[in-house]
């Protein structure tokens, strides 16, 4: 029984060993079909297996020897299989890694291409921007641009010691101007600016500008006559609520066309135009004029060190503006003369006598200069406005003169400039930022040619009982730039008059003292 059990165990062992060997060899045959060089020894082992398996009658020592031999062969086979598997694995892995690497590269490249396509697409899309500089909508190539800007000025004027004059204190909407501007076909700019402020709605600017290049441009329509330095300051960048007495002698907007441009990178600029010929400054401008004689107006302005390294001189600019009209006649509806010279408080202190018309040549000359260095700014100009006037059969040539000088100092360190102040730290009390603060001062004077009062027996062309022959004004103020768009101003102006001999409580009877305030939104 015991022998039988032993025999059975041996038989089982042999059978299991045989199965293991066969499985191993067969497995290796399936798994490693390409390793033909190793087949010889493998086959040798296979050939010996049947011999052992069939030898069921061998004795125990022989069996032990056989088992030992078989074990050795199995171990050899296992080692060989392991070695072969080790040889194959890196090749498989390398192929897999290479395949994955290509897939990753392809995905990365597709992403690159997608990003390029997005960038390329963006270049073809219209551009829309909304910010401190207003609203802008443009084609991708910038050939067509439409912009919306605006200026809103809410003022107050308070007159002191005005001789009991009524109705001159109060709040007013000084300017309320939406500004539509833009570009069509790359080189053609346009601007259309109505004004809903004041007592009448009017078109302030309406013009086209063709840019051949920065040096040569042609502007046509209604726009500022290129003469006065202070007059050419943008309304949003004025130092005071109102321009000075010097601007009383230059024309406001006029209808015409002008060649203009910047030369040598802005070192010199010029404008030369042909206009209807507007009278001395008139706040209410016209959109038409029917007269045969036209006015030439022009201006040269130089900033020789604008692009130099000389910091102290970069902000120096000077020039001269002027106009000439051979015959500035009256028409059926207008006198061709200013409706009057006004003070800072916009009160008329001089008007021509009734029946006086422009008649004959008119010309103006205005030497002008400014200087800006860091927070400091200085601007000055002198104007002669010469006009032949006629009343009935009498005529006289009147040369009225005016000048002004204004200074500014930005307390918070920002640079002053002809184009205003941009706060370094926009108003934000939570962040302890308070915008930019600027002190401003101005002195201006206007002198009406004495002949207006003395010629032809006196008080013929102007009446000293109704008009002053001159005015001198000083102003002080402080401007607070909350940010690029918002501004609050406070200023005081004092004006004294010469030559007023009226007995009534007229403007020239006593000095004018006005406290101005302004809240401004500009974008």
């Amino acid at each position: 029984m015991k022998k039988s059990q032993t025999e059975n165990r041996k038989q089982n062992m042999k059978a299991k060993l045989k199965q293991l060997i066969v499985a191993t060899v067969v497995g290796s045959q399936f798994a490693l079909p390409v390793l033909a060089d190793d087949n010889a020894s493998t086959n040798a082992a296979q050939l010996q297996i049947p011999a052992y398996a069939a030898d069921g009658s061998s004795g125990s020592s022989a069996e032990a020897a056989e088992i030992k031999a078989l074990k050795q062969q199995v171990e050899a086979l296992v080692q060989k299989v392991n070695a072969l598997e080790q040889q194959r694995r890196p090749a498989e892995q390398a192929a897999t890694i290479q395949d994955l690497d290509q897939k990753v590269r392809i995905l990365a490249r597709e992403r690159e291409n997608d990003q390029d396509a997005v960038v390329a697409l963006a270049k073809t899309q219209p551009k829309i921007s909304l910010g401190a500089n207003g609203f802008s909508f443009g084609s991708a190539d910038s050939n067509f641009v439409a912009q919306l800007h605006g200026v809103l000025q809410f003022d107050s004027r308070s007159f002191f010691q005005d001789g009991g004059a009524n109705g001159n204190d109060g709040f007013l909407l000084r300017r309320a101007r939406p500004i539509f501007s833009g570009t069509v076909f790359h080189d053609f700019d346009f601007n259309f600016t109505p004004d809903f402020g004041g007592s009448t709605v009017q078109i302030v600017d309406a013009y086209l500008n063709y840019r051949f290049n920065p040096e040569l441009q042609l502007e046509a329509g209604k726009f500022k006559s290129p003469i006065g330095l202070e007059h050419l300051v943008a309304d949003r960048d004025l130092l005071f609520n109102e321009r000075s007495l010097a601007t009383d002698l230059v024309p406001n907007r006029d209808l015409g066309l002008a060649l203009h441009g910047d030369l040598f990178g802005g070192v010199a600029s010029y404008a030369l135009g042909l206009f209807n010929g507007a009278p001395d400054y008139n706040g209410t401008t016209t959109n038409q004029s029917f007269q045969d004689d036209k006015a030439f107006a022009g201006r040269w302005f130089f900033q020789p060190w604008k692009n130099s390294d000389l910091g102290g001189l970069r902000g120096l600019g000077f020039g001269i503006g002027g106009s000439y009209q051979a015959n500035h006649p009256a028409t059926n509806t207008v006198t061709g003369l200013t409706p009057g010279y006004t003070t800072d408080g916009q009160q008329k202190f001089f008007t021509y006598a009734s029946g006086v018309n422009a008649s004959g040549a008119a010309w103006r000359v205005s030497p002008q200069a400014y200087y800006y260095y860091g927070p400091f700014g200085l601007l000055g100009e002198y104007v002669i406005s010469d006009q032949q006037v006629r009343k009935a059969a009498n005529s006289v040539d009147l040369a009225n003169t005016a000048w002004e000088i204004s200074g500014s100092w930005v307390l918070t360190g920002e640079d002053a400039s002809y184009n205003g102040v941009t706060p370094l730290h926009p108003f934000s009390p939570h962040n302890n930022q308070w915008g930019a603060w600027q002190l401003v001062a101005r002195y201006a004077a206007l002198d009406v040619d004495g002949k207006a009062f003395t010629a032809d027996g006196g008080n013929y062309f102007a009446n000293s009982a109704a008009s002053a022959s001159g005015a001198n004004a000083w102003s002080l103020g402080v401007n607070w730039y909350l940010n690029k768009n918002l501004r609050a101003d406070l200023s005081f102006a004092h004006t004294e008059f010469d030559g007023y001999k009226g007995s009534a409580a007229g403007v020239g009877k006593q000095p004018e003292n006005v406290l101005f305030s302004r809240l401004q939104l500009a974008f």
Partner: protein
Amino acid sequence: MKTLLKIFLAASLAVSAGAKEIKLLNVSYDPTRELYSEYNAAFAKYWQANNPNGDTITISQSHGGSGKQAQAVVNGLEADVVTLALAYDIDAISQQAKLLPADWQKRLPNNSTPYTSTIVFLVRKGNPKGIKDWDDVVKKGVTVVVANPKTSGGARWAYLAAYAYALEKNNHDDAAARDFITKLYKNVPVLDSGARGATVTFAQRDIGDVLLAWENEAHLAVQEFGTDRYEIVTPPLSILAEPSVSVVDKDAKRHGTTEVAKAYLKYLYSDEGQEIAARNFYRPRNEAIAQKYADNFTQLKLVTVDEEFGGWARAQKTHFADGGIFDQIFQP
């Protein structure tokens, strides 16, 4: 006063008189960067030496897929001249934007194609996939890099070269050719918008086994990256690629550059222009110069679009227009 005004006006206008600085924009296709970089310098020198006004000339380049570039001109890119990959793209400018006459090709010799090229294979060093001919390109397991024929002129030439091969091989059996081109584009994993982009994909991003490239682009790639990395394989049959050039009449007239634009293109046919083309691996039209640079160009059978496809208009409509064969066979 009048004298003063005259002086003022004269001074104002004087800034625009005298020697001019002429600016020229050449809108070209992708792989011509090196060619026109060299040619523009040569032409500027030639122009300054030969015009009495002492005008200086600055030539700007714009490059991209030829089809895309043509569309950019149609959409407003103000080119003085176009030097595109194929005549059809310039025809598109003429037809869609009317910026130049329909017969623009007659204005310069050789149908306004001052140089030619063809499509070859750029493979990795040792040519591990054994690519010798078009049949090898469509084998399973071969990854092919080529640009999108919808946007790239070079890719359209490559597509037509492969299609022409299939037609020749299969007795002009169109179904067989279509099957062939389908297999080819199944091997294309990514489509760049231009030929230069495809070169970047193959050479710099290490994608694919073979790049179907302009002959000049393949040579430049080998020059730049080295013969130890890439090899050029010229198939026995390919297509005669004829890049075309033209003045964009209306834009040039608007810019006042018509005269210089014409001279610019005419100079491409000069000995110097042809030498520069040959040095940049474009096949020059000038026989003598072609002979001089014969070593640069392997001889092979070149079929033409006119012979094989009935001209560009027909080829475009059949293969590349929306809903054409390419749209039918290519699955991204």
